[in-house]
């Protein structure tokens, strides 16, 4: 049996997960940085990670009932993400690897979101829709890579949702009880026209954000703004996904990433799946958001195919594209 400890620290979550190759999740410990106001402040997030990392690590080992000696491999998310945050995880992973003489495996955070989705659902060869605060990507595995079929041309979907509710004075906190502020303020809203942008296979949300805020300032009701902005943003994403299904001939859709926890978006994808006669899989909410388990699990896959890195070479890559990673499995 191989046991992998994975370290996640790309954005607002410092997480450590431990998995075995049965496959089984042995531990899942997390610390979440929540900004007092505004969005993520990278250095503040990193500082909070440094303070909390030791207890997150201790907690993970105690959940698994293991000592560090029983760990076979250390995996770490080296990117993409925020530099200061990434460096905390990378430093800890390198230290563990060197001090305890464990092999170190580099993991791409985006690949990890997809692989944990595949591990926890029955999806076999899906069109993957990866949506989070920093990513909006439609992708599928073709010829040993996750090829990017479509993506946002400007801001990510989660980023758009956060920025909108923040500017409307409704957040932070952005998500309460698993429900995003944009869903709360959409209740009772009616559709008003906002710019719907699909450029081929790509979406774009920055123009929509500007137009929605302009409409708000001109006196349109806040619930109508929320409802319509959400409607337009989600619909354009689903339309792009539909194009991906048609072009790539896939019969499964897999939703991963933090925004996959949005029930309203899942409803829209359900409608698409039913309409096109394809299967929809959604990563469970707990693993939709950033976590160490997905890094550990992807590290397991990478390690089994011989991917390791010397600690002195394990530098963070803030812009490490999904389609730059060779997928051997």
């Amino acid at each position: 049996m191989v046991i992998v400890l994975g370290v996640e620290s790309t954005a607002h979550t410092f997480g450590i997960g431990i998995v075995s190759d049965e496959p089984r999740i042995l531990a899942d410990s997390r610390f979440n940085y929540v900004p007092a106001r505004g969005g993520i402040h990278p250095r503040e997030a990193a500082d909070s990670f440094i303070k909390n990392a030791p207890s997150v690590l201790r907690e993970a080992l105690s959940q698994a009932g293991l000592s560090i000696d029983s760990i076979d491999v250390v995996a770490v998310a080296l990117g993409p993400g925020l530099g200061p945050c990434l460096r905390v995880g990378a430093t800890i992973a390198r230290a563990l690897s060197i001090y305890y003489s464990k092999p170190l495996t580099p993991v791409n955070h985006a690949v990890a979101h997809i692989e944990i989705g595949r591990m926890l659902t029955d999806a076999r060869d899906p069109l993957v829709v990866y949506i989070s605060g920093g990513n909006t990507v439609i992708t599928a595995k073709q010829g040993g890579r996750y090829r990017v079929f479509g993506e946002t041309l400007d801001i990510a979907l989660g980023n758009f949702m956060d920025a909108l509710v923040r500017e409307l004075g409704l957040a932070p906190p952005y998500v309460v009880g698993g429900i995003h502020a944009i869903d709360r303020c959409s209740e009772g809203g009616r559709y008003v026209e906002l710019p719907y942008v699909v450029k081929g296979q790509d979406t774009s949300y920055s123009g929509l954000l500007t137009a929605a805020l302009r409409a708000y300032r001109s006196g349109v009701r806040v619930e109508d703004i929320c409802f319509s902005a959400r409607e337009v943003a989600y619909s354009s994403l689903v339309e792009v996904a539909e194009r991906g299904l048609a072009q790539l001939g896939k019969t499964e859709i897999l939703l991963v990433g933090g925004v996959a926890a949005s029930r309203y978006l899942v409803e829209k994808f359900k409608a698409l799946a039913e309409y096109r006669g394809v299967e929809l899989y959604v990563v469970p909410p707990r693993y939709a958001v950033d976590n160490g388990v997905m890094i550990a699990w992807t590290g397991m896959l990478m390690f089994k195919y011989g991917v390791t890195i010397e600690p002195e070479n394990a530098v963070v890559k803030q812009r490490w594209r999904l389609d730059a990673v060779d997928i051997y499995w």
Partner: protein
Amino acid sequence: MQRVIYLGAEALVAEGEFLGRKAVFKLRLRKPYRVLELDREIVSRRTAAEARIMAMLRERGVNVPRILFVDPLYGLIVMEKVEGVVLRDALGVLSGEKACRAMAEFGREVGAMHKLGVAHGDITTSNAVLSNEDSIYILDLGLAKHVEDIEDLAVDLHLLIRVLESSHYAVKEDLLKCFMRSYRSVVGVDEARKIFERVAEIRMRGRYIEERKVRKVN
């Protein structure tokens, strides 16, 4: 008698007869994932725009199917049938040389369209037909529009490169060369260079591009 031949991302496409000739019926279906108002707006806007642009392109000598009938409110366009094979499928079976010739034809048509200031908006190898006479017809102009700036023309090429990367990754470079050579000859060397430079720029705007410099901190 009509026969559904394709349920695309955008519309249902059926074959049949219209006024005694072979025709293709393109019907934009209501999408269950969009609210009614938004859906209606998108369907009628795109149907009318598509028909208008197809008629203009055809008149100016670009290979697109001839329009026979249009009804924007129902989202219906009836057009003549082009006998041939979808380019995506053709590229999978053609020899290197023939595939190159098909891509060159494709480049010529896209170039001619761009020269008229029209961006396609969804230019993939699924949206082109290699006719029985070995010419390429451009289909699905539902997202096409007149543009002032080269930005949207560059987005077309950016998308096409992406499609080659995702659907034809093994032979991407060769196919792209064949396409670009004839594209350049139609739009002109200077204009083509400007567009290619913009394509490179658009690529850099994608998320997490390594070549892009990290913004300098003052």
